[in-house]
């Protein structure tokens, strides 16, 4: 397999009403590692054109808010249309580190997997000061994921992941909202993709905790998953 050129690696960052400073900081850090960054604005109240005008990123905007899953799919479609060989999904709230994304890419470059999933529980520092409640919800999430997808992972609902071209083509997110993380696993299974978990560091700031999903959101993800099974 030929090596993946740096300019064929696209990082997709879904954005919805993100704090401008946090977003810019995240993007600047990303750009230091990856030249091709695709920002998908999921219908934020304030358009990002001006906020991001000095950053060399691709900006796509959903005229209406669809959800994070839909944004990731839009960014992925865009990247594939431009000939992406690898696609990285990266959260906008600054909780992921570009260095982790680069390490994930290395797995793809060495052709050791089609999909690399981040895990906060593979090493000690990964989860850091994760609130206890969230830790408990994620444990339940692991079980739910296993029941729905048959994949027994160390983490549930981690936003950082890397896909090679084959995986990005096969995985089509139809869950527009938050259930996409489980949907990815489901489709890994359906399309028999090779996957690997990799320890990632997650930086919990007051901002990312407030912006991130509330634990109660886990329940609506569960409902979405059941409906997705019933109405495909």
């Amino acid at each position, binding site marked *: 397999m030929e090596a993946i050129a740096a300019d064929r690696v696209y990082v997709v960052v879904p954005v919805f009403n993100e704090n401008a400073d946090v977003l810019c900081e995240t993007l600047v850090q990303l750009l230091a590692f990856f030249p091709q960054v695709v920002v998908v604005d999921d219908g934020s109240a304030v358009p990002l*054109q001006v906020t*991001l005008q000095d*950053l060399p*990123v*691709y900006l*796509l905007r959903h*005229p209406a808010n669809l959800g994070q899953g*839909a944004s990731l799919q839009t960014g992925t479609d*865009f990247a594939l249309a431009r000939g992406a060989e690898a696609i990285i999904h990266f959260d906008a709230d600054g909780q992921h580190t570009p260095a982790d994304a680069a390490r994930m890419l290395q797995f793809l470059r060495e052709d050791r997997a089609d999909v690399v999933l981040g895990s906060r529980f593979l090493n000690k520092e990964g989860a850091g000061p994760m609130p206890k409640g969230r830790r408990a919800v994620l444990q339940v999430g692991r079980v739910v994921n296993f029941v729905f997808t048959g994949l027994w992972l160390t983490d549930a609902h981690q936003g950082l992941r890397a896909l090679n071209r084959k995986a990005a083509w096969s995985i089509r997110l139809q869950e527009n909202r938050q259930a996409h993380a489980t949907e990815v696993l489901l489709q890994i299974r359906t399309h028999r993709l090779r996957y690997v978990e990799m320890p990632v560091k997650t930086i919990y700031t007051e901002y990312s905790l407030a912006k991130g999903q509330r634990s109660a959101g886990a329940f609506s993800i569960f409902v979405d998953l059941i409906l997705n099974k019933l*109405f495909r």
Partner: protein
Amino acid sequence: MKAIQIVLVSGMVLAGLLFWLRIRTNFIVKPLLTLLLLTGVFFILFPDTTTFIANALGVDRGADMIFYLYIVSSLIVLVHFYGRLRALQATLTAVVREQAMQNYSKLGEPELKEPKAG
């Protein structure tokens, strides 16, 4: 004829009229719904027949049987419309995505200005 029968039958007739005039649907649904409406009118005019059918099915009162059937049928309708809602959402997503992909911009690059003619 009791007053309530007049009210209910007029309601059914009105619903039937609206349905025939306004809703364009396929040739299976239309006769089926018409049949349903006619059955409804029949039961309103001869309520004892429902009790007769109910007893045959093991239900004591005709009104109870109608109520049970109503619950089941409304659930079916609910599921049907939920399916349609999802299909609609999928269409909307496709449209929004297409538009977002067409109108992308590459930022951080000075805009190319048209050279002014002579």
